[in-house]
């Protein structure tokens, strides 16, 4: 693998926002997720649960409910009282409609996706019609006191169940009247405590399932108004529940971080009598599980600890394998760090500000594994606060370190940073060209004289940076056939000749920067691109896909390289293909052209193209065994993949120079301490 001097960076104080709500797109493999900071993400199950789209949040726009309606349109509603429709191709909010009932706590779409019901602070349930190009207010249903915290449509669309405080109501959609009101109070020794119905589900047989603040999951017969079954799953609140499409399984999330599955099982073999039985408990979260979703094959839960957990149901799986793995996502599947190689600077992107740090340095050398003392500590140079309520989409620092650019939904900012001894001055570049906003990815050229801005509709803008502190729009690349999707990844070649851009439709376009021309398109592959980079020497484009496949495409020859074909023929190692987190960054060592450096959250890998590929019988992660072998035997065991798992979770890794690496880690424990305290639970033996 070779020895590197590693900057182990742990001062990136990123705290991912907690998961607020989840919405599964019925009969399609997409999951929408909203975080507490208002960001909305879309995960694609068919692309190995890759975080396909991210729409950064907005300070004033919290999202309390998400739902899919009318095909694949995604709607959100929140405490701002607005219903928001998201533009998933353009990765932005397409339009907002005021609900007119104060803060919105809940929203649900009917089974055909033509109507939206919202539950408001004032106790009203309002219906909206989903029409092409927007939504239209339809009518108000019966208004009663008490905020509507949760809503569920009956699968036949005739009734709506609404959960409030101490009470649940069933509303007739046609007449708009409350047809049943069921008290769900809880009396403890004559002291009446408030019982909050946190989540509700309406089953087709007329059963209403509620989860409440006393940790109960209750099954009600709405027509009789009677309680059928009550299961206490937690001493604290049961916050969320979701029902499978077949209505034979329910997942419940609690504020103690545990999720439970309920299954409708026959009481006796062969008999028709069925009962809901609490079966599997899972404890994957440390904090409140605010949102759960039930896909056809998996239980999905999201918690305030920012984790998204996908737990496949083994009995629904045809075979054990890649799909049957438990996945936990805490960090975004994209880069939040950019590195100025020459200036040895790191730029960290937070939701509303940027931090610029200078790496520490040392003059000493040591043996493998030794921690070297620093002669200069890492230095926090700069904090750039974004103005306005909008969150930052993307950011970048130029390799020379003198330019910093970032973009929000409505604005693009470019700064020039000047270093004079110890003092630093930041100068905003005035009069940046009016571009098609927002920008989804920014990339400086290697020689820092131009900036590439990925934009909507597949376009990429090329800006020329001018000294002192100016810029000029040179060109806008557009895919020859046109595309509605935004570009989310960029890669430029070191010689300034080529630029590769990937859009939401996963096609990779290569542009010639010298003559501002579309060069070619990389053959389509049926999976999302998670990272790509152009080799500085050979100008080969290395592409990592979300199914963990690697391709190498020669730009000058417009075809896959021999190595890439060899990889496809032999196939990658099984263990490699079964990893569950996507590769987020690829880089190269100019001195060793056969090496490809890449990483995901759990490992850093150097692929040596000159060595043979490992077959499935060989050990993929063999670094520690190799160390113990004698020289001759070691030679036989060598293969192309050299994997290091020392740094976890790894948010960013880059090569500074020939033998110097920077690794940005964010230990989970560090940010767990910044989350609000979880519910105290007595643990045996403590």
């Amino acid at each position, binding site marked *: 693998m070779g020895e590197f001097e590693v900057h182990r960076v742990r001062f990136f104080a990123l705290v991912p926002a907690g998961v607020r709500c989840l919405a599964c797109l019925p009969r399609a493999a997409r999951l929408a997720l909203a975080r507490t900071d208002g960001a909305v993400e879309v995960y694609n199950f068919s692309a190995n649960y890759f975080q396909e789209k991210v729409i950064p949040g907005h300070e004033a726009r919290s999202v309390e409910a998400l739902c899919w309606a009318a095909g694949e349109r995604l709607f959100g509603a929140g405490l701002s009282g607005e219903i928001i429709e998201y533009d998933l191709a353009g990765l932005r909010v397409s339009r907002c409609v005021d609900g007119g009932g104060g803060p919105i706590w809940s929203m649900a779409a009917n089974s055909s996706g033509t109507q939206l019901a919202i539950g408001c602070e004032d106790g009203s349930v309002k219906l909206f019609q989903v029409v092409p190009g927007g939504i239209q207010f339809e009518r108000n249903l019966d208004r009663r006191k008490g905020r509507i915290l949760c809503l569920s449509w009956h699968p036949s669309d005739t009734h709506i169940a609404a959960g409030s405080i101490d009470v649940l109501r069933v509303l007739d959609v046609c007449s708009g009247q409350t047809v049943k009101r069921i008290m769900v109070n809880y009396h403890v020794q004559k002291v009446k405590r408030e019982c909050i119905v946190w989540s509700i589900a309406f089953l087709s047989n007329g059963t209403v399932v509620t989860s409440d603040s006393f*940790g109960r999951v209750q099954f009600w017969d709405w027509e009789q108004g009677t309680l059928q079954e009550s*299961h*206490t*799953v*937690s*001493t604290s609140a049961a916050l969320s529940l979701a029902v499978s499409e077949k209505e034979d399984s329910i997942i419940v999330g609690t504020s103690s971080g545990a999720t439970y*599955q309920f*299954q409708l*099982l*026959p*009481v*006796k*073999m062969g008999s028709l009598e069925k009962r809901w*039985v*609490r*079966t*599997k*408990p899972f404890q994957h979260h440390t904090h409140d599980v605010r949102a759960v979703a039930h896909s056809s094959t998996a239980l999905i839960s999201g918690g305030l600890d920012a984790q998204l957990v996908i737990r496949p149901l083994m*009995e629904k799986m045809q075979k054990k394998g890649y799909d049957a793995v438990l996945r936990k996502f805490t960090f975004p599947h994209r880069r939040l760090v950019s590195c100025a190689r020459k200036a040895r600077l790191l730029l960290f992107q937070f939701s509303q500000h940027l931090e610029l740090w200078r790496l520490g340095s040392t003059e000493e050398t040591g043996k493998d594994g030794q921690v070297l003392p620093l002669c200069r500590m890492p230095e926090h140079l700069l904090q750039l606060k974004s103005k306005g309520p909008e969150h930052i989409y993307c950011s970048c620092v130029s390799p020379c370190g003198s330019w910093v650019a970032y973009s929000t939904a409505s604005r693009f900012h470019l700064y020039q940073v000047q270093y004079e001894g110890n003092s630093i001055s930041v100068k905003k570049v005035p009069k940046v060209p009016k571009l098609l906003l927002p920008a989804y990815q920014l990339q400086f050229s290697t020689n820092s004289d131009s900036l590439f801005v990925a934009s909507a509709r597949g376009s990429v803008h090329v800006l020329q940076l001018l000294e002192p502190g100016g810029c000029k729009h040179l060109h806008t690349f557009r895919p020859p056939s046109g595309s509605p999707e935004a570009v989310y990844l960029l890669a430029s070649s070191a010689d300034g000749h080529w630029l590769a851009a990937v859009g939401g439709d996963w096609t990779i376009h290569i542009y010639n920067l010298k003559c501002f021309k579309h060069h070619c398109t990389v053959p389509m592959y049926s999976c999302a691109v998670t990272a790509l980079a152009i080799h500085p020497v050979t100008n080969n484009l290395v592409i990592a896909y979300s199914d963990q496949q690697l391709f190498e495409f020669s730009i000058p020859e417009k075809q896959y390289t021999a190595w890439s074909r060899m990889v496809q023929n032999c196939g990658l190692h099984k263990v490699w293909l079964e990893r569950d987190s996507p590769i987020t960054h690829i880089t190269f060592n100019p001195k060793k052209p056969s090496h490809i450096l890449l990483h995901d959250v759990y490992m850093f890998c150097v692929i040596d193209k000159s060595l043979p590929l490992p077959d499935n019988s060989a050990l993929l992660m063999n670094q520690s065994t190799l160390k113990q072998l004698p020289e001759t035997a070691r030679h036989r065991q060598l293969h192309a993949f050299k994997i290091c798992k020392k740094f976890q979770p790894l948010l960013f890794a880059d090569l500074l120079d020939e033998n110097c690496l920077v690794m940005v880690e964010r230990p989970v424990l560090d940010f767990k301490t910044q989350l609000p305290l979880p519910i105290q639970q007595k643990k*045996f*033996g403590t």
Partner: protein
Amino acid sequence: MPVPGGSRRAAGHHGAGAAVPAGKMVAPGALRVVRCGGSPRHGARAVFSNDSKYLLCASGDFVKMYSLATEETLRLLGGHGGLVTGVQLNPHNCMQLYSSSLDGSIKLWDFMDGIPIKTFTVGHKLLALYALASSEDSVFVVVPKSSERDTFQLVSVKLTKAAGQDLEAKELSVVLDSVDASPKCIAFGRAGEYVASVKEVNLQVYFFKQKQLNRFSVSAVKAKSGNNHFTCVACHPKEDCIATGHADGKIRLWRNFYHRKEYTFSTLHWHHDTVMDLAFSVEGTSLLSGGVESVLVLWRNESDYQKDFLPRLGSAIEYISMSPDGAFCCTLHTDNRITIINSNLRFSKSIQGLIKSMDIKTGLVVDPRTKALVLNGEPGHLQFYSLQSDQQLFSLDIVQRQYIHQAGLKQVDLVKVAFSAQGKWLATVEEREEVTDPELQLKLWFYDEETQSFKLNTRINTPHEDHITGMCFRDMDESEDDSLLLVTAGRDCVFKVWVMVEDTDPEAQQSVSWSCDFVGSYHNYQATNCCFSEDGSLLAVSFEETVTVWDSVTWDLKCTFCHPPGKIRNICFGRLTCSKYLIGATDYGFLCCWNLLNCALEWSAHLNILVLQPDPLSEYIAAVSWLSKESSLFVFKPNEPRPIYIQRNLCKEKIQLAAFVPRDEPEMISAEKYLWLRRSQLFFLTDTQELMTLSTKSLEERLTPASKQLAVEEGLLVTPFSLLFGRHRRQQSQEDLGKLAVHNKHWQDSPAVKELLHTPAHVLPSASFLCPIFINSLLISKENKSAEEVSDEVEMESENTEDDSDEERDAAEMEQEDTNPMELLGETICKLSKSQDKELRKIRKMDYSWISAF
């Protein structure tokens, strides 16, 4: 063991009439070793009778039947030649019981009458037994697989309907292969539709109708939670749900297990260690679980959050069983205790015989006051075990610290105990097991007449620097307090003499306390044993290989004895006529007898003696040797080197401890060989903690009192009200009706009538044979009547002389045949005036054994 024929001992009529027990000559029979307590109840789950009045449980080679109302042992169903491994009610006849044993037979009993109906010989070792209502004529047993060692299979055995008592049952069909040997690892499901078996990490479910076998397994080893092997299984009585217990304390509830893939389970977790047993309630709404925590957990609605506890049950729960009507649940514990628990999870009763303790360090000691055996009980407690009733009298908390169940934790335990001659003082030593520097405490307890219990008088911390090896009181009968001394011998090379002193502290509640009076040592050898001579004038202390004899007044060293090689293991003085002898046993297998008058070795014998026990009431000494895996008993008098009685191969187990327990009255024994058993009875305890004794009586004789009680109990329900009311009415009727009452009473008393009415019909002789006896019994003879009238007169005044009748009752229990069943209920009707009675007793206590010598 040969059972002597015709040795039924007819007891005398006590009360009116004969003053001396009519000493019928006892035919000389061989001594038999009788198990009398502490048999492990580990064979199987206990079974309730259908009316929840009786509890049946396997106990060693027997099946014991207890009454739930009185906690007494009503019957002992004996006949198996090996450990009983399963008891099950016959599902088609609730008055019958199946039992299986390691001897390879299944017996069908009529348990109400204690009669074996049928014996089916299977021919394999039977490890567990299951009887199902759905299987008409077969039961299920676990047998070892013939080809492989340590593998077992569940087979169904067809029980033939043929006539005759002893039948062969060779028709076996294998149901499940490779099952666990434990009876807890197999359970039959709802209406016998399926059977579930667990072993290690696998659960197999076999459906009888579909002939389908499903296998499930839990992942073998989880580094985090440790061992998750299955330990027990139970099936829901109404639904298709299987509960399994695991070694890591989890309970899993399996459902949908007829699908190989879509099966599902939920987990309940409270126990921190192995779940030992599980039981569903009758309706299946709740689940009971128990383990080493000695807490019974009730899980409601299969919910982790709705559970109730019954804590502090004393020791680890081994088996749980439910009564058929759901009113009771019964837990069997590892220390042989049985606890009966109400359906609302309230402790109801505890049936405890000899409590099995982890290690008996105190030895067997007899409490002079109650004649109870005293030994280690629960951790830190001293148990008083009544030999007569096979019950624990009470448990004295000596250590007075919470016992924490934790592996590797060193607990304070009781190691030595000694009573003064009258039982007024009790000395205990407790220590924490540490290799160096043990934590020692000597406690002296005073018997408080008011509270009828021992009260702590003095606590001495670190009485010795090292372990205490011996402790004894100087027991002089008269004026105990003045001459009372306590001697302790320690491994710190000294022995200490403790005396009572007036307590000078004005704030102290008691007048006396104990303090050290004298410290003696001998050449810096470790002191190993100590004992006083009968008159208390001499103290013998053994120091490794030497026995030293000290004057107990001046504490002068009188003489030393030594018989190398070998350290002294036991010493004791001879008694009565042999009080001039000192007997010692050494490590290298020598038994020595020294004459104290001439300080010379009288005789010695080459025997590996483990236990040396003198009889306190005679000059006999019992010695138990251990040689080549068998224990032998030698009884000798010190003045003659020839043993009086030798029993080789007393039992296969190592005998650790023995004790002579004085009899209430001397037993009539004619054979010279057994004369040593006349005054006291010898009890001994094996290393498996089974209490055994030697008896000349046959098995049936010993059991008759208990079986008679059953007949009484069946008749009337004993409540406080009925006792009060019944007695009142009886008195009244006797006064009013006069002669008629006498009639009536007589009629009830007649053994012939009783036998006729209480013997099951199928074992009665023909009616023509019974008829004259019955008629005769109804006739009133003249002299008998007058005797009855006399007794009626005195009945009233003797009502408040209960302390007298107490002893009488003990005697009454030894008697049989003709005694009034009422007496056995505790309502002793004393038929003599006080003075007469005293006289009578004096005569009875006189020793007439000398007559038999002629």
